[in-house]
């Protein structure tokens, strides 16, 4: 058991609702589930949240349409022992719990992403957190998105623009009571540590059809 958070979904625990950053549009949305349907509510203008950067997780994450996401992550400052992705669908990613501000929802949400643009923004936020937490022991940062920075990438004869979020710490706050760290299994949801490794059942497509690797998670 590594230090971690209660993100349980497969074993009957409460499912933590998610909050998404769409790097292709530079927008934030919270995903509300009602009557078994998901509804994305745009919260870009009001986005403000307490980020639990004390327990941010990094590692390998798989988002495949039609399947539950698979997380093979460790809690910072641990580094993932596996240098290469466990499957072609897993990409380097980040997962964190946040408590949204009252104006944009007010509840605890999970953010998980493999978008390079988002990871860049998170990396800069984490640097700011490490610099500021010494003066704010036991507190967590209150974060807003002050801007987005377009990042143009070229490849396979196409140009695409993703927006890196400029995440800014505007305040430090005591840890909200409902954003409590709890132990959780360290292993991937899809491949617990003490089970045999899968061999592969995902059909591969020819290289010309491989997907853009800067997906929105």
């Amino acid at each position, binding site marked *: 058991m590594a230090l971690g958070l209660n993100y349980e979904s497969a074993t009957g625990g409460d499912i933590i609702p998610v909050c998404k950053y769409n790097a292709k549009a530079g927008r934030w949305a919270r995903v509300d589930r009602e009557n078994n349907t998901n509804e994305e509510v745009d919260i870009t203008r009001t986005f403000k949240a307490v980020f639990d950067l004390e327990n941010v997780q990094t590692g390998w994450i798989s988002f495949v349409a039609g399947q539950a996401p698979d997380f093979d992550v460790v809690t910072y400052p641990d580094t993932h022992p596996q240098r290469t992705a466990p499957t072609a669908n897993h990409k380097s990613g980040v997962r964190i719990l946040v408590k949204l501000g009252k104006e944009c929802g007010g509840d605890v949400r999970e953010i998980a992403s493999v978008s390079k643009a988002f990871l860049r923004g998170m990396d800069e936020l984490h640097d700011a957190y490490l610099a500021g937490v010494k003066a704010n022991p036991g507190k967590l940062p209150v974060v807003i998105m002050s801007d987005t920075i377009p990042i143009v990438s070229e490849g396979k004869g196409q140009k695409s623009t993703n927006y890196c979020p400029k995440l800014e710490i505007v305040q430090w706050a005591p840890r909200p009571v409902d954003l409590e760290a709890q132990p959780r299994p360290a292993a991937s949801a899809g491949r617990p540590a003490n089970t045999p490794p899968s061999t592969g059942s995902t059909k591969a497509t*020819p290289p010309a059809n491989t997907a853009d690797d800067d997906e929105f998670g």
Partner: protein
Amino acid sequence: MVRLHLNRIWNAMSSFAAHGIEHLSPSSCNTFIASPAMFVLQKCLKRSTSVGAAAHRGTATETGVAHGLLEPSAPITECVEKAVAQFDQLTALNTDPRKEKERDGIPGMVAQALAELRPYGVPTELQGHVSHTVEGLDVPIIGYFDFEWGQHGILVDLKTTHALPSKISINHARQVSLYKAVRGNSSARICYTTPKKVACYELENSEQHLQALETIGRAIQRFLAVSGDPSELAAMVVPDVDSFYFNDPLTRQAAFEVWGL
């Protein structure tokens, strides 16, 4: 006296050298875990064994597919002809009763595989040799991969079968994990082709499968270290002669001569 002499030699050598084994392969590792008796028969007692028509079907199909990939404009019929010609050559003296059935499957297997793999383009390397050194293992694990597209970082091993599997087998995962580790490909795949269907699966958890292969290699080393006398090792295992490993009449006869079974 002879045994004492052999053991004296063995004490001064590595367990592999004492048995004249210069390397392991995914195939020999798989044989060791599936049929230790067959491993002893082949690698320690050096008895010649022959493979059935199914193994030749695989070799022949690969020849036809390789031709079709290297010559993208070659008609399928030409690729099939090359495959069948090689099968006929390889099985000219083979008495396997399934020979005709295996021959009949080749045209479809070649066509299916080419439909799947031609979109990858022309491979940059075929039948590439790989050699992997393992800490604590006195010999390398070697192998030969089928196709590599260096420009895409993709390596594919072709497998022929009559029933399309829904996932990669453990043995195949271990084999291809070796290739991936040595070549440093970002993607390793196994293409299963049948006379009517084809599927190419992405290898997952390659590091763990490679570790398994290394574990098997170390187990073989410990087993061989028990004695430098092959007959002593043979006395520690018993063949399952109902297994397909002993289908070939000559192999079956060899098992009878060694174990009396």
